[in-house]
């Protein structure tokens, strides 16, 4: 029975099965990760103490499950944790909390003035922020204002302004790592000091001309 052609035939059969199985599993995994859900580790201390609370002491990072289903990403509420491509670096992905959605007016939190991390020197962003401080900033259409919970060390909309909603890739569902916090949503109930006045984008009326033109262009 174990003649040479039989051995080769069986080896090829096994290799074929293994290859197709691998391709099926990886194809399904890629499809699910792109369109349905993804887990990722949250590196950095911009979302402490809710997420990755021990990052600056032990370096332990939490793993979060993100919902990437496109229809549910259209409704972003204030307080959601979102995963988005960073506007300043297209290869980087960031996780922050939505503070205000389109049409809302916000008053900036004075503690969140962006300065250089190591010595507090002024940056070009500081001047832009200073010019907006004390005024009411309206979040433009199709944009959101994101902030990290940790006001001491967070690169967020205070640094680069409101971000386009199209940059958002996912919405956080629950913590999956470490196991003792599995399934919890520790970020709920956060009270931000950035004052938000809910509002709507004017769809018709005086201010709607340019917005409608952009939307239909």
């Amino acid at each position: 029975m174990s003649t040479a052609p039989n051995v080769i035939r069986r080896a090829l059969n096994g290799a074929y099965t293994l290859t197709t199985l691998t391709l099926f599993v990886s194809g399904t995994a890629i499809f699910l990760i792109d369109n349905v859900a993804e887990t990722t580790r949250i590196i950095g201390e911009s979302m402490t103490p809710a997420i990755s609370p021990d990052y600056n002491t032990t370096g332990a990072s939490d793993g979060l499950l993100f919902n990437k289903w496109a229809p549910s990403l259209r409704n972003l509420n204030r307080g959601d944790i979102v995963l988005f491509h960073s506007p300043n670096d297209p290869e980087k992905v960031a996780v922050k909390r939505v503070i205000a959605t389109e049409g809302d007016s916000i008053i900036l939190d004075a503690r969140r003035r962006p300065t250089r991390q190591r010595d507090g020197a002024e940056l070009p962003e500081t001047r832009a922020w200073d010019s907006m401080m004390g005024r009411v900033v309206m979040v433009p259409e199709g944009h959101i204002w994101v902030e990290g919970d940790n006001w001491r060390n967070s690169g967020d909309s205070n640094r680069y302004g409101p971000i386009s909603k199209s940059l958002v890739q996912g919405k956080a569902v629950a913590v999956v790592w470490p196991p003792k916090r599995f399934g919890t949503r520790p970020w709920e109930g956060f009270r931000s000091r950035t004052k938000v006045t809910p509002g709507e984008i004017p769809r018709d009326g005086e201010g709607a001309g340019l917005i409608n033109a952009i939307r239909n262009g």
Partner: protein
Amino acid sequence: MPTNSKPPPNPRRFVPTDKSQAKPAPTPASPPTTPTTPPTTPTPRLTLYRKTLRYLHLNPTAPAARHRTFSNLLGDFLYYFLAAGLALHVFTKNGYTLGQAYGISMLPTIASFGDWLLISKTYRHGRNCHVGDVVSFRHPVNTGSYNVKRIVGMSGDFVLAYTPEEGEGTMVQVPEGHCWVVGDDLKWSQDSRMYGPLPLALVTGKVVAKWSSWWRWPEALEQGLRDAVIEDGDVD
């Protein structure tokens, strides 16, 4: 199976298991007069591995005795459908995709209706994109809409903020991680002149060719850049 003159086979001993290659049962007309010669083809051992294969009906040498029933056909169809769907998803996300364009903002490069664009996804997130490339991107204001425009400035470049010969000629520097996109039909295009620099993360790919009619070959899109100074070496 061997004749019933032998004792029942002990599973741990040598037993030929393969029926498809089983030797034909000896006919009663040929009594075994000659001493039994060792079999010419080696018989397989019933190891635990092979027993598992047989239990799971995965014996690779068993003949494929599948009848062409409807459920078998459906299973085959689903298998190939799933395989094709997953392969297509990976390919269109990271390889190439075709999209139909409509709108007048890219005339005369892209027609207002009926052009199919071949988009290369290897240029997504602005990788290897240069000034002059026609790119497809997610609209920064109109969430969910995909637009096609031409890059006229990458990060760090200085670009004219408004239309030429209109406005004051203000130039802006494109911030890091962004690009400035403008439609080819300046009069009717809504682009970075209205909504500002476009984050490169929104770029989904570069349009490499357009297919205007099905009876023509796809045409590559021109890069559209011309030298600022046309050197003419002839002495007139």
